């Protein structure tokens, strides 16, 4: 859908034609749903959160000025709905990024040589499971930015629009998100290594 088509539909909705919202839903629902799914971790909640996000978009179309793509705005809403949801559901306090995390230059990426060598075979399914598990442990702000990048395919510019961050911050935060995820995976004994044809596996 082009920006033009998007804006046309949005105008229609603003003028009372609710049906015009449907193509916008259909176009974006996969990305919204998958973003929500990986953010909140289960289908039921993802469903609710996705509906919330779309309805928030519908109800607030008046505030959408078309400066960014509709999808980017929508992902922003979705991210916020997800974060609010997670905060309300958690028993422990929201793990926001601390100063320490952001400025943590000292922390090196833990990549022991032997674990990352090509000898270790990895099952794709296993890998997916480990990464999904790891994502759930990732602090929410890292999780959301990584998902916006990987699931919704947003560019750094778009992410900076969606999250109201400087592009430089987007870049470094993404890097730190990946670094953090790697260390979680490493701590769990799961290394996101590529699939190799060799048989040896580390126990």
């Amino acid at each position, binding site marked *: 859908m082009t920006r033009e088509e998007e804006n046309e539909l949005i105008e229609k909705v603003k003028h009372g034609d609710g049906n015009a919202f449907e193509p916008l839903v259909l176009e974006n629902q996969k990305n919204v749903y998958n973003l929500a799914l990986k953010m909140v971790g289960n289908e039921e909640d993802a469903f609710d959160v996705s*509906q*919330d996000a779309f309805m928030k978009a519908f109800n607030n179309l008046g505030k959408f000025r078309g400066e960014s793509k509709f999808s980017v705005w929508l992902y922003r809403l979705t991210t916020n709905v997800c974060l609010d949801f997670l905060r309300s559901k958690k028993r422990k306090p929201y793990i926001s990024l601390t100063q320490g995390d952001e400025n943590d*230059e000292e922390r090196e990426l833990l990549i022991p*040589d032997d674990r990352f060598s090509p000898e270790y075979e990895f099952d794709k399914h296993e890998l*997916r499971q480990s990464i999904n598990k790891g994502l759930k442990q990732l602090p929410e702000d890292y999780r959301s930015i990584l998902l916006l990048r990987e699931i919704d395919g947003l560019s750094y510019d778009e992410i900076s629009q969606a999250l109201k961050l400087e592009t430089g911050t987007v870049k470094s935060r993404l890097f730190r998100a990946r670094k953090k995820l790697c260390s979680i995976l490493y701590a769990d004994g799961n290394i996101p290594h590529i699939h190799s044809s060799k048989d040896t596996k580390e126990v």
Partner: protein
Amino acid sequence: MDNCNKYIEMISSLVDGELSDEQMSELNAHLDSCQNCRRVYEAFMNISNTISDDLVEPPEKLAQGIMYKVHIADNGGTSRHFAFGRFTALAACLALILYAGVHFNLFGTDDSLAPKTDSIEMADEKSDVDIPYSELSEIPEDSSFNTSQPQVEDPTSVEENTDTEEQSDEASLENDPESVEINVDDSIGLLSLPEEELFDKDDQLIFLTEAPSLKIYEGEFLPLDQEDSKKSVDLEEVEPILNMENSDEISQFSALLSVSEKEKFVIPDGKPLYTIWFEVPTSSTSEDLSEPVFMQMLIWDTDDGLLISTNDSEVALKLTVTIDEFNAFIYPETEPSSTETSAPVQNTQSSTTDNL
């Protein structure tokens, strides 16, 4: 290899395709000679590929549920027509949505916009009526549906009474655990139905104006059991006071059924004044077309005026029209008398009553 820290950060950007050509060649040169960094690259690529490959299709109900709510929101505001949610198993569930110029703040909270999914699943299993989702877009292009659009403060919310903790006590239908209330800005929504059927995937809104036929019976005339609502046999034995099959007439009549009071009333004792039977548009069901489905509403004559309710609701709302105006519509040739109709009418099995 202190450079590696710098390169590792660049690797992240490389995976995202956000390096300049210059940076890219510099990095590639380094990767050729640095195994650690190559492994970092592999690790980041794996993460990226795994996450982006693992996308699923959203459930069908997602879009349907959203558009359902959009349509509800769309027809709030100045619409004064009836809309009826169409839910499965005919009979047991009657859905009645009344719109008026008055804001019925039946739901205090607006956080929980979504139905609980277990209800959706239940509805799915029970569903034996297939209404094509595309029917949802068949909303009459009526000037009265022209509403102001989404610059509303309160989001539309549809909420089920039983499970949520966020329910607003003041306005919830505490008497009726099966009610679901719709809070639409500047309108009232009253949806009364078994909660598991609320979000049947085939839901759509049917407007009374689209009913192919509408009959008014004197007194109380309800199907004996669920199955009867399908049968036209019973209906043939009792004559309606008014039988409308003309869409203009039906439109006019539905315009009569507007509600303007905020108050909810308890269902009066005794029998209703009239029972309205209307046929659910058959084009919206994929059921056997030879068996039309009917829904009923009851009109009550009370000291507070005319009330309207669904068959199994415990709450009635007040109609704006007076009994005289209503009767004038039904009996256009006679002079309406306000003294004649206040006595409740017995459930009649006899032939046409004669009020002329």
